[in-house]
């Protein structure tokens, strides 16, 4: 006999949201990688710079996620983000769009 769960979704919803943030971080990294690949064709000595930028994007995203998670609530828990975080994410995406626009215009 199973015990009915009155509130089964609280932790799962938070976990799904945390996973969504991680997928978004991966999407940012992929976007940065495409842009970097566009700017540096990854041959010669410059590929170290490109790979460093991609690694930097990963590290920045991990640090931001860790700071946001640990600064609000107990470690391991997840609480909804404030409006400033959403504005920051949108501004970052728009910045990537601007860089991509300029890179596309400058393409040979």
């Amino acid at each position, binding site marked *: 006999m199973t015990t009915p769960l009155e509130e089964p979704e*609280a932790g799962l919803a*938070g976990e799904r949201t945390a996973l969504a943030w991680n*997928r*978004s971080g991966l999407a940012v990294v*992929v976007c940065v990688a495409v842009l970097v*690949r566009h700017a540096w064709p990854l041959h010669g000595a410059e590929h170290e710079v490109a790979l460093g930028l991609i690694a930097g994007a990963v590290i920045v995203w991990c640090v931001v996620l860790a700071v946001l998670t640990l600064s609000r609530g107990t470690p391991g828990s997840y609480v909804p983000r404030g409006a400033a975080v959403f504005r920051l994410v*949108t501004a970052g995406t728009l910045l990537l769009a601007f860089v991509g626009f300029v890179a596309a215009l400058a*393409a040979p």
Partner: protein
Amino acid sequence: MADLEPEPNSGLDAAEAGAPAASSPLTHSSAPAHDDEPDVRFTYANERTFLAWNRTALALIATGVAATQLLPRLQVEWGRRLLGLPLIALGAVVAAESLRQWRENQRAMRRGEPLPRSRMPLILTIGIVAIGALAAALAALGSP
């Protein structure tokens, strides 16, 4: 927009403040009051929706940049840019619109109002269909 700024630890505060089962983060005052903190599950869902749209925007941007770089030269001058630049612009529109949509949803939930109808699917569909038609036209012209 100050009314949209959640208090620190907003979801937990709302649950801990006046809910019958104070240990649960899900419980919430049943009567929708003006500018009341919504059920945390709805806040999470709104957050995930914003993130999903933001990932869509990032995918459009990356696709646009890749189109200008990876496609072969087309018959039409600026053919690759004709495909790539609208994709990037559409990504920027989707990103900006996702923030507006998140704000409006959050405000509606706090006030206990119906959620506003999203314009995002329409914008995205029209944009992708237009770019697809453009791609088909460029493909019909062939490569040099």
